[in-house]
């Protein structure tokens, strides 16, 4: 062990020598000697921490925006389509989103969501939450901020590429937001964007509700695809950067076995993005071809499109011969690994927080890392369990049922290891830990309710019901989003030098926990009763097929959603207020954690560490018997070791 450290140190010295002769030619990085201006420091920054914060703040804004869309949808679900929104809210929304989304309720002054608008909000809620909210925060935001610090790196391996990936993401945000304000409003064909519907909705040349014609490029469907292309490009650049950074820029002594679990999670997630996202990019390009050049990749033969709004049939006549199923394959080839892209960084954050706040090492670190690898591999061969309804036949579905059941094993290993990590710990229930603890049962419910869906026979009945909605929201909302909240509370002191308010944090936590369960749990019952996920009026039109009690649950669920929304305001306030008025951190390591990010000044400067970092021990050495304190930072040399000072960093 010790010999290895010396070896690593000498390697480090060698590397420093190499860096010497590279120095002077690498002008790009030589500018940190003088202070950067506002634009280069906070906007067009190449510093991984600033980029991480840019991602996080943009992502949080989108998370709230996507949530607001859903809260408006919940109104028509609870009250049916004929009740205007309360007060002046309807008028305001109509002012913002226009005739395509909000319509006047006959006989009243008020406005409500139109069926078409419901489709718009439904599609955009899913898209925004997944691709513009959670992935940018959990993967790109926290990954960018925390991961290089945890491995002891000065920055990401390719800082300018890092900036490029953020700005590619930003362009995609602009496309998505702009798509609300073109004639016909944003995309309407679900976050999965299934053709042939996706090919014929919002067709150029058709008319929006206000009578304006949809442009060839300026229509919801096309802008959605353009947005996705930029979003995916940003993700790909980011994931290349993440993997290279973790492989190449680990500090001396930071062996793979000492890598904090969060970095492992980011590493595997980056691989998932790298390999799963390109097929969706190719699918998006094909779909763009269909929409803009009238090709037929996804348009089957014999597809007839009638345009009610126009006198002449201007719809592009598709040659046909395409395959809608192809889109589903390419989409789910991404979107199943995407599920793990959503959850793994969350599990990584939770692991850090649990280890720190139970004051004991993670139980089964190696098993967890192994589970990550198995999970990542299996996630590439389960995608068609989203497609049982396509009539794939028993042999193919038997394969996908088997792999789907297999993938629950590594997931359960992760969850069990985290659960057992609580055992015997002296737990500090601060706000991050509350969220982290709540994550476990919530993610458990989400995961276990997925097992029935893995079976073809059950899925044929459950497909597209509220059961599915509840299942994946339990994974992502009280799962990943709770992890994101935990991460915010936990790393906020490092980023700003101040704590977020504990009192407000606890109010936020308990409110969120109660109402998020009231929000999603009834959906399991509704789904099993046969409620379909895309019903505009919450099933009123189908009241002969669904029992009225289940339709009535819509109201409970909606009130819970709005209450949940109120409690998020507490978080927003806390987040903004604490930047200026939060309690100052007493030192650089306020949580008394072991990992390297707490070895930096607070907030960390450009270049991160002020002293050369060497790692001497595993990631979670808490409560080591015989140690003088209950945590031993990774950079603390073993007692009695002669300290070898590496060559000074530049």
């Amino acid at each position: 062990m010790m010999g290895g450290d010396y070896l690593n140190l000498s390697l480090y010295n060698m590397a420093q020598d190499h860096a010497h002769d590279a120095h002077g030619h690498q002008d790009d990085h030589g500018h940190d000697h003088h202070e950067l201006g506002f634009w280069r420091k906070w906007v067009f920054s190449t510093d991984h921490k600033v980029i991480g914060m840019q991602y996080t703040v943009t992502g949080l804004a989108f998370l709230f925006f996507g949530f607001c869309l859903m809260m408006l949808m919940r109104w028509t679900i609870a009250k049916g389509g004929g009740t205007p929104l309360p007060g002046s809210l309807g008028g305001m929304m109509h002012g913002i989103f226009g005739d395509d989304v909000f319509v006047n309720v006959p006989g009243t002054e008020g406005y409500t969501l139109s069926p078409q608008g419901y489709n718009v909000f439904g599609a955009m809620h899913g898209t925004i939450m997944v691709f513009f909210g959670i992935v940018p925060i959990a993967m790109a935001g926290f990954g960018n901020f925390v991961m290089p610090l945890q491995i002891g790196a000065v920055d990401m391996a390719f800082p300018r590429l890092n900036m490029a990936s953020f700005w590619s993401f930003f362009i995609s945000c602009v496309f998505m937001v702009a798509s609300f304000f073109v004639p016909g409003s944003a995309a309407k064909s679900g976050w999965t964007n299934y053709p042939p519907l996706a090919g014929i909705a919002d067709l150029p040349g058709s008319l929006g509700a206000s009578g304006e014609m949809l442009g060839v490029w300026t229509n919801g469907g096309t802008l959605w695809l353009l947005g996705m292309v930029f979003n995916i490009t940003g993700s790909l650049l980011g994931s290349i950067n993440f993997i290279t950074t973790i492989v190449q820029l680990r500090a001396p002594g930071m062996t793979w076995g000492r890598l904090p679990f969060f970095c492992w999670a980011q590493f595997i997630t980056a691989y998932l993005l790298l390999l799963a996202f390109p097929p969706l990019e190719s699918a998006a390009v094909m779909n763009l071809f269909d929409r803009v050049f009238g090709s037929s990749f996804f348009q089957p033969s014999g597809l007839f499109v009638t345009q009610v709004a126009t006198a002449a049939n201007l719809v592009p006549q598709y040659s046909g011969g395409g395959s809608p199923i192809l889109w589903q394959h390419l989409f789910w080839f991404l979107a199943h690994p995407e599920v793990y892209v959503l959850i793994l960084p969350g599990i990584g954050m939770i692991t850090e927080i649990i280890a720190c706040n139970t004051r004991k090492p993670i139980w089964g670190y190696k098993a967890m890392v192994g589970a990550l690898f198995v999970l990542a591999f299996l996630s590439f061969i389960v995608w068609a369990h989203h497609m049982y309804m396509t009539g794939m036949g028993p042999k193919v579905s038997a394969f996908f049922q088997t792999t789907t059941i297999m993938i629950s094993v590594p997931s359960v290993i992760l969850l069990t290891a985290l659960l057992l990590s609580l055992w015997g710990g002296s737990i500090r229930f601060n706000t991050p830990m509350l969220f982290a603890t709540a994550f476990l049962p919530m993610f458990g419910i989400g995961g276990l309710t997925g097992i029935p869906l893995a079976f073809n026979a059950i899925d044929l009945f459950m497909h597209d019901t509220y059961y599915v909605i509840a299942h994946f929201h339990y994974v992502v909302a009280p799962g990943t989003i709770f992890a994101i909240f935990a991460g915010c509370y936990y790393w906020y002191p490092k980023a700003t030098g101040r704590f977020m308010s504990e009192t407000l944090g606890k109010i936020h936590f308990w409110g969120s926990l109660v109402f998020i369960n009231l929000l999603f749990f009834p959906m399991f019952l509704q789904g099993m009763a046969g409620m379909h996920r895309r019903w505009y009026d919450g099933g009123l039109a189908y009241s002969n097929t669904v029992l009225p009690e289940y339709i009535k649950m819509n109201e409970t669920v909606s009130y819970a959603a709005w209450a949940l929304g109120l409690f998020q305001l507490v978080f927003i306030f806390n987040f903004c207020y604490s930047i200026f008025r939060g309690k100052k951190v007493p030192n650089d390591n306020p949580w008394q954690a072991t990992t390297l990010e707490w070895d930096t000044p607070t907030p960390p400067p450009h270049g991160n560490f002020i002293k050369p970092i060497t790692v001497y021990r595993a990631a979670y050495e808490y409560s080591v018997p015989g140690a003088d304190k209950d945590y031993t930072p990774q950079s603390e040399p073993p007692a009695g070791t002669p300290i070898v000072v590496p060559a000074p960093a530049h």
Partner: protein
Amino acid sequence: MEIPYTVRPRPDTGLANPKLGIWLFLASEVMLFGGLFAGYIFMRLGAEPWMWPKGWLNVPVGTFNTFVLIFSSVTVILAWESLKMRKLFSYKVWLGLTWVCGLLFLTIKLSYEWPAKFHHFGAYIQKAAKEKYEPYLGNDAHVENGAMIDGHEARKGYPRLFLGGHLDLDHDKYAMAASSVQYVAEEKLDAVLKLGKDETDANKKAKLISRRDEILNTIVIRPDDIAELKKEPLDPKKKTEILHRMNTVHMHAVDAENAKPYDPENDKAHFVPRDQIPVEHLVLDKQDLIAGHGPLVPKLNTYLACYFMITGLHGAHVLAGCICFIYFWLPIKGGSKLFYTNPEQLLNRIEVSGLFWHLVDLIWIFVFPIFYLL
């Protein structure tokens, strides 16, 4: 602050950052083109036999382009080798050849291969109208298998329903634009012309009139025809004439396989532009055509959709590679001037962009057979 291992490899991984980065990027590129080729496979398996054309591309030109790319893959290695030996002049020669080859490839693609398709016209005949165009399709509906026609044996197999040729561009400069407009029934045209006529609200009327003009601009290509249609009152004779013009396609030079469908010469793979073909005039009624008719663009069939998408994206990659090489070739700070200050870094740059270039080349090795040969 200095990011380590930008040039020299990290001892324990044996890699410099850019090399690992480019390999990861190539992995994602493989998945990207994997998705596109998956699309090709789906399209081809799903196509009806008569919908998937054969011999539309110029094989000798494609082969030439293939060799151009392969040659440039060799020259980029030689450029790297020259740099490794610290020979600046030969580095510049080989790298220059590399990007010249890349641009030559693109020039052939964009000045000859793609435009050839835009100047050609193709149409799928509806099955119901097969009889009408039978002499041009060469199906064996009227003849027994093996019967001799024009001294050649009648062909068997799937009914052909495709007609190809060139439009009468000498006489009608609007022919190509008009040809891709769909069939417009008289009632539909009437409905469009009626838009806004009886509206009393001036504001609404203006809106509807502008809407009418927008639609007319899409379905009627000749400006004088539009002006004629907008006249009040409209001459019904003129209207019939315009409708006829809108709803027929005048093919000036029919493809050889349609002009002489029984000639076994025409069974061989052949190329789109044919100057030596017999000029035959043919009028197609748009009502007899299915949705796929017009220039050979992605809209016509899934083969062309795949062709343009895959060769287009591949071309974009070639362009990106050329831009990198030109940058490293020019005597600028990040380019060949780096030879004097940090040759090792320049070597890395050529190695990394060369890896990318090989992948682009490799993708073409797949693209060429699946479109040109199979």
